[in-house]
C-alpha cells in the first residue's frame, strides 16, 4: 500500500498543505465573494426564477428503458445482493473495519456516494433501495396469496419527516460516536454494523407494512429521505412517471414548505457532518477536557468517550439550528414578513446546497481513497480474511498520492463557496416570493447572508484545523 500521507483519525484524509496564503485568508476571501454575490443578486435578481421548474420531458424511450421491469428488477436485485453481502461480511468477516467490505460499503460507497449521484442525476435511490425492493416482492406475493393488496394505516402527517431526521442522527451517532475507536476512516466494528443493518431492515420492512411502502419511503425511511433531499438540486427528475429535465435547484423550493420535519433533516445533515469533521480537530481539546471530568467521576473510558461525543454532537445540532433560526428571526423583523413558522420551513431548502457542500468538503478525499479499496480488495475479499480473491484484486491497495493535499483543500474551498452561493441564491429567490417588493426581499436577506458567512467560515475553520 502506497502510504504517502499519514492517516489522521478524522474522516478527511489529508496531509499538511502547502498553501500560498494562510488558510484563514480563504475564509475572508469566501466571505467577500458571498457579500459580492449578495449585492449582485439584490441588483440583478428582481423576480422569482425557481418557482417554475421549467419541466422538459425527455424522450419516451429513455423513460421506457430506465423505468422498465427488467431494469427495476436488475437494480433492486443488485441492491438486495449488496446489502446481503454487507450484512454477511459484517457479521462473519474480520473485525478490522478497514479490511471489511461492510464498513466501506455502508458508510462510504452508499452513504456518501448516493448524495453525490443524487445531486447530479436526480433521485436514483428508489431503484436501488433494497428494502423497497424486498417490500415490492413481499407485497406482490401477498396480493397473489390473498387476492387483494395489503391494507395500511394512515401515516400521521404531523410526524412529517421527523422519523427520518431522528433516524439520520441515530445513524451518524452509530458511526461516529458508538464506533469512535480512531485510527481508521470509520471506526465502527463490522459486527455492530452488520447487526445494525439487520435491525434496520426489520424496522423498515415493519414500517412499510404498517404505513405503506411509498409512504414510508417519502417520510420515514432515513436513506430515501436523505438522498431524496439532495436529488432536489439535480437538473433531472421524474414527473407523472416520465423522466425529464428541469431547472437545477428549482425542485428544492417546495421540498420543505409543506412537510413537517424537513428543516430538521437538513439541519441534522449539516450538524452531523460538522461534528464528524470537528471531533478529531476543532473539538478535540474541549472533548478531552470533558472526558477528563467524566473519567474523574469514575466512568469507564469507552463510556466517557461516547457520553462526551454525544453531548458535543447534540451541541452541534443545537448550534446549527440556533444560527439558522436567528437568521429567520432577523428576516421576520422586515415589514411584510410571513409568520415565523412559515419562514422556518420556507427557507430550509436554502440549506440543502450547504449540506451537500459540507458533505463534499468533509468526505471528498475519503470517498476517492476508500472507493479504490471498495472496487479492488474489498470486493475481492469482502470478509477481509485473506481467504478469497473473487476478482483477482485482493492484493491491490489505496494510492494516497492520487490527490495532493492542496488539491483536496481547493476542492473543499470551492465546494463550500459554491454551496453557499447556491444557498444564498435560493434564499433570495424565496424572499422575492414572500415579500414581492425586491427592496424588502433584499433587506430580509441580510440575515441569510450572515447565516451563510457564518456557515462558510465555520466549515473552513473545521477543515483548516483537521489539515494543520
Amino acid at each position, binding site marked *: 500500500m502506497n502510504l504517502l500521507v499519514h492517516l489522521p483519525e478524522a474522516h478527511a484524509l489529508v496531509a499538511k498543505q502547502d498553501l500560498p496564503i*494562510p488558510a*484563514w485568508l480563504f*475564509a*475572508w476571501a469566501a*466571505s467577500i465573494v458571498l*457579500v459580492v454575490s449578495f449585492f449582485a443578486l439584490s441588483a440583478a435578481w428582481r423576480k422569482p426564477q425557481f418557482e417554475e421548474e421549467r419541466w422538459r420531458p425527455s424522450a419516451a424511450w429513455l423513460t421506457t428503458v430506465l423505468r422498465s421491469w427488467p431494469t427495476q428488477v436488475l437494480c433492486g436485485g443488485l441492491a438486495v445482493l449488496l446489502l446481503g453481502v454487507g450484512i454477511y461480511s459484517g457479521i462473519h468477516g474480520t473485525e478490522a473495519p478497514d479490511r471489511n467490505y461492510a464498513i466501506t460499503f455502508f458508510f462510504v460507497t452508499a452513504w456518501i456516494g448516493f448524495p453525490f449521484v443524487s445531486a447530479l442525476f436526480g433521485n436514483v435511490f428508489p431503484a436501488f433501495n433494497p428494502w423497497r425492493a424486498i417490500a415490492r416482492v413481499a407485497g406482490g406475493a401477498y396480493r397473489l396469496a390473498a387476492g387483494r393488496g395489503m391494507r395500511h394505516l394512515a401515516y400521521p402527517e404531523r410526524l412529517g419527516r421527523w422519523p427520518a431526521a431522528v433516524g439520520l442522527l441515530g445513524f451518524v451517532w452509530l458511526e461516529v460516536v458508538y464506533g469512535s475507536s480512531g485510527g481508521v476512516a470509520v471506526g465502527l466494528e463490522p459486527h455492530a454494523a452488520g447487526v445494525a443493518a439487520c435491525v434496520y431492515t426489520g424496522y423498515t420492512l415493519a414500517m412499510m407494512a404498517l404505513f405503506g411502502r411509498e409512504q414510508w419511503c417519502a417520510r420515514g425511511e432515513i436513506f430515501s429521505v436523505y438522498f431524496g433531499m439532495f436529488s432536489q438540486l439535480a437538473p433531472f427528475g421524474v414527473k407523472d412517471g416520465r423522466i425529464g429535465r428541469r431547472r437545477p435547484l428549482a425542485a428544492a423550493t417546495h421540498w420543505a414548505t409543506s412537510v413537517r420535519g424537513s428543516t430538521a433533516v437538513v439541519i441534522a445533515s449539516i450538524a452531523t457532518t460538522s461534528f464528524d469533521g470537528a471531533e478529531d480537530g*476543532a473539538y478535540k*481539546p474541549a472533548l478531552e477536557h470533558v472526558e477528563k471530568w467524566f473519567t474523574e467521576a469514575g466512568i469507564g473510558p469507552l463510556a466517557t468517550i461516547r457520553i462526551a461525543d454525544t453531548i458535543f454532537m447534540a451541541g452541534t445540532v443545537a448550534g446549527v439550528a440556533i444560527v439558522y433560526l436567528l437568521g429567520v428571526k*432577523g428576516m421576520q*423583523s422586515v415589514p411584510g414578513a410571513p409568520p415565523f413558522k412559515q419562514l422556518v420551513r420556507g427557507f430550509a431548502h436554502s440549506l440543502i446546497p450547504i449540506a451537500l457542500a459540507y458533505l463534499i468538503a468533509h468526505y471528498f478525499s475519503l470517498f476517492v481513497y476508500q472507493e479504490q479499496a471498495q472496487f479492488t480488495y474489498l470486493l475481492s475479499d469482502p470478509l477481509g480474511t485473506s481467504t478469497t480473491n473473487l476478482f483477482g484484486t485482493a492484493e491491490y491497495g489505496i494510492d494516497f498520492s492520487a490527490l495532493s493535499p492542496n488539491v483536496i483543500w481547493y476542492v473543499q474551498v470551492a465546494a463550500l463557496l459554491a454551496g453557499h452561493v447556491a444557498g444564498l441564491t435560493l434564499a433570495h429567490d424565496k424572499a422575492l416570493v414572500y415579500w414581492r417588493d425586491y427592496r424588502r426581499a433584499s*433587506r430580509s436577506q*441580510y*440575515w441569510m*447572508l*450572515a447565516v451563510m*458567512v*457564518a456557515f462558510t*467560515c*465555520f466549515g*473552513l*475553520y473545521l477543515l*483548516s*484545523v483537521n489539515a*494543520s
Partner: protein
Amino acid sequence: MTLASIVIPSAHLGHWLWVFYVIPVLIVVGGIIRSTRAEKKREREEGRSEAPKRGPKERR
C-alpha cells in the same frame, strides 16, 4: 537580555486561530445591524415628514 527571553511564546497561538474565522462574521453582522438601524431611522423620518402633509381624515 538573552536571546531566549525575547522569543515570542507562539506555541499556543494555534488555539486562537478561530478568531480569524470569526472576524468576517462579526463584520457582516455589524454591517447588517448598522444598515438595518439606518433604514429604520430613514423610514421613521419619512413617516414624520409625511404626517403633517396629510389631512385630518387621512390621519384618522
